[in-house]
């Protein structure tokens, strides 16, 4: 049995959620005031994910950095693996918003795309 405490992010209430787990199985959730809190807690303890945003180095253009993001969310424990690949990547100018900068970043199956254009 493992007990985990989380802060709900859905509204300024910031309910303190307590999740009881038996291995990978959630056995109890308490502390939420609305159903969104319960759903959040379930996801956060079983499969927490995040979108990672940063910048990628650009060569051959006026801008030297272009902002980027993972096209969808990636597992939370992969954030720094993703950052390592983003830090190492280089794009060639011009970059168009939405363009893929890194395929399948850190083995997540998710691409890193440009969130702005760079000339």
């Amino acid at each position, binding site marked *: 049995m493992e007990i985990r405490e*989380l*802060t*709900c*992010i*859905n*509204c*300024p*209430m*910031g309910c303190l959620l307590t999740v009881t787990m038996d291995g990978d199985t959630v056995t109890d959730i308490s502390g939420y*005031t609305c159903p969104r809190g319960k759903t959040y807690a379930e996801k956060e303890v079983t499969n927490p994910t*995040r*979108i*990672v*945003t*940063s*910048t990628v*180095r650009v060569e051959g253009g006026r801008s*030297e*950095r272009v*902002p*980027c*993001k993972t096209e969808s969310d990636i597992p*939370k424990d992969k*954030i720094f693996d993703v*950052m390592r690949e983003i830090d190492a990547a280089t794009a060639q100018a011009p970059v168009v*918003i939405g363009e893929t900068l890194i395929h399948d970043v850190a083995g997540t199956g998710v691409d890193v795309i440009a*969130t*702005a254009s760079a000339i």
Partner: protein
Amino acid sequence: MNKAYDIVIVGGGPAGLAAAIAARESGTQSVIILERGEQLGGILNQCIHNGFGLHTFKEELTGPEYAHRFIQKVIDMGIEYKLDTMVMDISPERAVTAMNREDGMFVIDAKAVILAMGCRERPRGALNIPGYRPAGIFSAGTAQRLVNIEGYMPGREVVILGSGDIGLIMARRMTLEGAKVKCVAELMPYSGGLKRNIVQCLDDFGIPLLLSHTVVDIEGKEHITAVTIAEVGADRRPIKGTEVRYTCDTLLLSCGLIPENELSTSAGVRLSPITNGPVVNESLETSIPGVFACGNVLHVHDLVDYVSEEAAKAGQTAARYAQGAVEKGGREIEIHAGGGARYTVPSTVCIDRMDDRLTVRFRAGDVYKDAYVSVYFDEARVMRKKKRIIAPGEMEQIILSREQMKEYPDLKTITVKIER
């Protein structure tokens, strides 16, 4: 260039863009945006994190992506804009003096002006932090620009004072870029930032949030080397004996935003001492006829979606004004904030000019749990809505309906209150 436009919009950030689009959609052709930056989009260009647009587009965008959708529309609609152009003065007669490298200094006569200059961060000086004044102290937004746009790191060991959203966002950005963020100190007993940012920018990376704490000393003659942080009492004064020293090479300040109203002031626009933004009526028109305001220059917003929504309204009403389609006169009803609500925007409403529904935005002065938002028409309470939580960091709103107001022909004052 053309020296007369129906509508001149000062600022090409999220407010200016949305106002321009709405003005055009309301049938005004002659619209120009004057933007001081090198690109449209304003501060969104440096807000590269996600979380924008959930209300407007039902999806989560980054700042540049959110801006891009509006910029693309402005371009597609053929709305004129000038970049790297600083508005120097606005006269009460709506003559807008601006300057850039290509055109020099020029004056545009506008039928209507929309103020959309945004806001700026409160600097260190205004916080009266004692100690040295070395390099390495930045407002969070300046650091955000350096890191995200210029691609430079201010330092590697960071302390953040103030838990506004920009500070929280920068805690994560600096961490992802390899810096160690030691703590975020917040003077108030609660954070002004979104819960989501506290969890995803601080908790995710084990960065402590020290509520009721402030910086009491800054060390380092040339470059910052350390800060001392102390707990503060209920009077917000440091408590002796609670000091802890943190070595650092960077101090970021995220201690509040101030609407940027120097131009408004020089035009003679009346400002609210609470919001530091113009006092406006239901049309978002300021004390000077034909001068409208929207976005963070009007009052600091929590979400850009509400900026866009408000600005669109200003675009529509300015277009109506420029077309000469505004009903003159009409009785003004005052909207007051009371009992925990700090202010309302707008602060007056005229039944003859308002749409069927009017959004009134306000902020609370404190954290309220299980409280009520009430609306009074003079002495009569006409609305009472229970809220689980009301916090100063989040904008609240109520909707007034014209039909309901018409039922009170002698209505003089509408009061928005937070009641326990």
